[in-house]
């Protein structure tokens, strides 16, 4: 029944599309107004910055009027787009939404593929190739490109470089040295811990867990949008290692750590030697820490450094006129120009999305002054794909529940991951 409905809907849509493109209006001189809806997820004046970019764009494209709409957090932007389209209103032409929202948004036809516009560019492929590959990993679906990387971050490990040096430690390079260093740096007064060796928040665990599984040999997600790898030896070993940091080494708080908001303050005040967090916290960390801060990826079991990206991409919302679509695409490209990507990175703490942005003179001066900004980029060189599959909400909840049960010792890691895999497979069955 639902398949038939969907086929019917598809036919209607294709017909409507053909009809619409049949009477395309000429693109060019008529004034066009487009809007961009964006969230604010870091402590930076994103509104002010975007307004500035819009002004610059309008000076270059006098026919286009750009309005920026602050729309709350990431979930609020998505709800706004959904409500406006379902309610028959004029949705903003561009929206900054999570890179991992791709499948939900595309399936429900809230967004448009960008491929036709990229193909029409003089150097479309070169333009795409210039984005850091890890950031583009969540943009493809059904052989099309749907989003452009914009405000992006990555999982990183911050370490107190001064403390490591004073205590004669080098930067941990594998699981063994990470555990040993964390254990050495943990300080106790009686039964009270005065300094943890490492804190690794797991209140919303899939993101900070992914690099650990990768370091054990296998990411929990692959190229397919309907496959997850929860019950692999890699994921199970990664859980075992995570638990051992508290049980064997006594270097980390026990069980699930619902401490996302607190670990940065703990780190900058010297109360925790190393933390796993988002690169988005970098400017905050640098402005508050009175010691030398180092940034690295998560060490793998036998060496190497691992990470996954996060954050939001630019999506083109469906239901626009041809002129609006072109203007929206032009603005999206404008926002990702190397100099602007560099400027945005410097002013917000997000990682610049393109290789060429790192060659920008301002960016180089910035990195010379803050080597940590360059280190976050190095982390991305070996980053994998952030968990994004069909039916993401449900699959992620399943994974979170079993992963946390395993962290808390309520379930054996092997049994937990097998159960997670089974339930996730069932949740993905309809999409295969």
């Amino acid at each position: 029944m639902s398949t038939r409905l969907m086929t019917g809907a598809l036919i209607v849509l294709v017909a409507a599309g053909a009809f619409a493109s049949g009477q395309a209006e000429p693109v060019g001189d008529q004034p066009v107004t487009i809007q961009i809806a964006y969230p604010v997820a870091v402590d930076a004046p994103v509104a002010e910055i975007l307004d500035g970019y819009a002004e610059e764009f309008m000076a270059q494209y006098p026919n286009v009027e750009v309005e920026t709409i602050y729309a709350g957090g990431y979930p609020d932007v998505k709800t706004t787009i959904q409500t406006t389209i379902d309610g028959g209103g004029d949705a903003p032409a561009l929206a900054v939404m999570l890179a991992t929202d791709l499948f939900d948004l595309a399936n429900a036809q809230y967004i448009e593929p960008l491929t036709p516009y990229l193909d029409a560019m003089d150097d479309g492929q070169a333009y795409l190739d210039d984005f850091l590959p890890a950031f583009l990993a969540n943009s493809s679906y059904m052989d099309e490109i749907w989003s452009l990387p914009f405000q992006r971050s990555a999982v990183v490990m911050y370490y107190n470089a001064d403390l490591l040096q004073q205590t004669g430690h080098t930067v941990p390079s594998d699981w063994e040295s990470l555990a040993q260093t964390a254990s050495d740096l943990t300080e106790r007064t009686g039964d009270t811990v005065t300094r943890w060796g490492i804190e690794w928040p797991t209140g919303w665990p899939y993101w900070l867990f992914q690099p650990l599984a990768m370091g054990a040999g296998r990411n929990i997600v692959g190229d397919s949008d309907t496959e997850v790898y929860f019950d692999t030896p890699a994921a199970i070993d990664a859980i075992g290692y995570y638990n051992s940091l508290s049980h064997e080494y006594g270097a980390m708080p026990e069980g699930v750590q619902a401490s996302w908001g607190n670990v940065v303050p703990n780190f900058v005040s010297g109360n925790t030697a190393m933390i796993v967090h988002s690169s988005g916290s970098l400017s905050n960390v640098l402005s508050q820490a009175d010691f030398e801060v180092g940034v690295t990826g998560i060490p793998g079991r036998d060496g190497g450094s691992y990470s996954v990206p996060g954050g939001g991409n630019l999506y083109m919302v469906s239901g626009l006129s041809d002129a609006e679509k072109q203007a929206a695409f032009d603005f999206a490209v404008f926002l990702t120009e190397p100099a602007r990507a560099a400027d945005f990175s410097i002013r917000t703490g997000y990682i610049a999305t393109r290789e060429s942005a790192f060659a920008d003179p301002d960016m180089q001066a910035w990195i010379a002054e803050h080597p940590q900004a360059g280190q976050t980029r190095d982390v991305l060189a070996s980053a994998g794909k952030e968990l994004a599959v069909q039916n993401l909400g449900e699959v992620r909840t399943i994974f979170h529940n079993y992963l946390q049960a395993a962290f808390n010792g309520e379930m054996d890691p092997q049994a937990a991951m097998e159960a997670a895999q089974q339930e996730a497979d069932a949740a993905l069955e309809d999409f295969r």
Partner: protein
Amino acid sequence: MRNTGRTLRATTVLRGAGVVLGIGIALLWSMPLIWSVIASLRPPGEPFARGQVWFGSGLSLENYVRAFNLAPFALYFRNTVLLVALILSVQLVTSSLAGFAFAFYRFRGQRVLFTVILTQMMIPTVALLVPNFQTIRFLGLYDTILAMAMPFWGSAFGTFLLRQAFLGIPRDYADAAMVDGSSWAQILWHVYLPMATPSVVAFSISSVNWHWNNLLWPLIISQSDTVRPLTAGLARFTQLGEIGAQWGLMSAATLVVALPLLTLFVIFQKRFIEGFMNSGLK
């Protein structure tokens, strides 16, 4: 005589214990508020960490300055007051009229109609986002304060609360007024509403509180800062998901938003209790 003395002493001891217990509970409940005030005054350069969550090296208003710079709070404040007033004033009219009709008259389909109204309380507001959006778009009210207020003009809760209050008032008063030649409107205005003051105040408090804090609908139905309420400003501080929480800044912003309502509540709490005292009848 001795017995009374002992009882008196026992009462005093009990009363004292009650006061101490009351103060203890009050302190416990106001702890988040107290902590917010302290946190907001901590210099921003000094992070919170294990064992260092109270006063910093000194007191600083810098968090407030930053909060005010990050969002146009004065404008947002005006909008919120307008919004809340616009909702409450209409709600009071519609709810008291509806409550009066259900309490005072007997008519065909009364129970069915009342049940239908009650059912509305069970529908979560999020489920109505799209239909509400369509209505507002049809009316051409997108991006106005009116659009934020309109979906809440009919209140099932208000109707229910006032009907119950009106039912508790003896019919004799209304009959007496009728004998004196009062119209239904006069009965409602001079007899029913004054006697139902506590319920009216209680409903007003809950309505103001709810709409003062509402974020999602105003955010969706508006796009310009000129019409947005305080919560839209607050969201800029609380949704910083990518980074660790800025407790000081967040506390400052929260207090800026909550303070007017808190003050209002302190004032109205007195009226609220008075209302109970004056309701008179048993």
